[in-house]
C-alpha cells in the first residue's frame, strides 16, 4: 500500500491510504479533541469537535479530521485562532444541553467556553451516537437507536430487545459522556419491563 506523507503542526507524519487525519495524528501522538470518535467504530463526524485547519496547495479550509482522509502534502493545523473559536462555540452549544458532563467541563477550561452562554435546554444527550453505534457495530444487538430528527432527535431503547439483552451487556454505559444513557435505560426499564428490575432470574413465576 502506498505511503502518504504530510504535515501536522510542523512535524512530518506518514500514513497509509484510507487513514483519516485524526487516525494519523493519534498514531503520531498528536492530540486532537474528540467526543464522538471511538477506535472500534466507523467514523461518524457527529460532534465536529475534532475540526482542524487543512492547507491544500495554498488554500486553507476547515475539515472534520475524524472523517477527512489523509492526503499527500497537506498541511494540518490542529490549533489556530479560528479552530479554537469554533471548538469553544461547539462546547458552549453542547453545554446548553449537558452543562456538567465531565468531559465537556474539562474541554471548556481549555477553550475558555462559557457553559451559560446559551439558554439551557437540559436534554442531556449530546447526540454523539456512541451508544447507538456501539450497540449496532460492536455488540450487534441493536437494542438502542435514534428516533426523530433535528432538535427533536433522541435515543430510544427497543423495549423488547433491551429487556432480554441489556442487563447482561451494558457495554455502552461507560461510553456516554453525559450519563443520559443510563438514565434513559432506567426509565425504559421502569416503564417497559419493570418485572426484570425486581425479580431475580430465579424467580420462576
Amino acid at each position, binding site marked *: 500500500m502506498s505511503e502518504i506523507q504530510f504535515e501536522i503542526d510542523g512535524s512530518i507524519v506518514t500514513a497509509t491510504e484510507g487513514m483519516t487525519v485524526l487516525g494519523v495524528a493519534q498514531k503520531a501522538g498528536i492530540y486532537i479533541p474528540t467526543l464522538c470518535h471511538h477506535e472500534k467504530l466507523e467514523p461518524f463526524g457527529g460532534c465536529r469537535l475534532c475540526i482542524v485547519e487543512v492547507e491544500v496547495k495554498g488554500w486553507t479550509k476547515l475539515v472534520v479530521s475524524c472523517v477527512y482522509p489523509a492526503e499527500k502534502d497537506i498541511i494540518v493545523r490542529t490549533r489556530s485562532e479560528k479552530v479554537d473559536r469554533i471548538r469553544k462555540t461547539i462546547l458552549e452549544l453542547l453545554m446548553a444541553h449537558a452543562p456538567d458532563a465531565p468531559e465537556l467541563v474539562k474541554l471548556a477550561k481549555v477553550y475558555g467556553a462559557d457553559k451559560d452562554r446559551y439558554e439551557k435546554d437540559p436534554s442531556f444527550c449530546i447526540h454523539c451516537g456512541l451508544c*447507538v453505534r456501539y*450497540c*449496532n457495530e460492536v455488540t450487534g444487538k*441493536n*437494542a*438502542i*437507536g*435514534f*428516533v*426523530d*430528527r433535528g432538535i427533536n432527535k433522541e435515543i*430510544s431503547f*427497543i423495549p*423488547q*430487545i433491551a429487556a432480554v439483552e441489556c442487563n447482561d451487556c451494558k457495554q455502552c454505559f461507560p461510553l456516554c459522556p453525559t450519563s443520559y444513557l443510563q438514565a434513559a435505560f432506567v426509565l425504559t426499564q421502569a416503564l417497559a419491563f419493570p418485572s426484570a428490575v425486581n425479580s431475580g432470574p430465579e424467580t420462576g413465576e
Partner: protein
Amino acid sequence: MDTIMELDNIDRIIDKHHGEASALLQILLDIQSENRWLPWEALARVSERLAVPLNRIQHIATFYKAFSLVPKGRHRVHICVGTACHVRGATRILDTVEEAIGIKPGETDLDLNFSLETVNCLGCCALGPVMEVDGKVHGKMSPVKTSQVLKIYE
C-alpha cells in the same frame, strides 16, 4: 378499516417488493397508505422479514413526517395557517375545528374519525382561509362553513 393490520396484509406488501431490504422505505409507505399509520407489530414483522434491525426501522419511521406511529383518523383535516390564510382568519377556522372535534393539531379523536394537522401553505392562497379534508380543498372558509363541512364527514 381495522386499526391493527393483519399480518397477511403486511406479508403481501413485503412480497410485492420481493422482501428486499432496499425497498424498506417503499414498504413502509405502502403500509402507511393502506393502514394510515404504522403499528409496532407491522414494524417488527418488516424487521424480521427484511432482516433490518428494528432500531433502524424505528429511526426511519420517526424521521419522515409521512409516517405515523400512532393511529390516525379516517379523515385527515388540514388547516392552512400560512401567512395569507392567517391574515384572513385561519385561527378562527382552526378554533372552530378544535372545538367541534375536541382535538388539537397533531391529535386524533377517540373514534378515529378525524386527525387534525396545520400546514403552512396549500398553494391556493387566493381561496384563503383554506381547509383541506382528505385531499379535497374547501376555500373561503368561515366558522359556520367549517362546521358544515365537518358534518359531511362525521
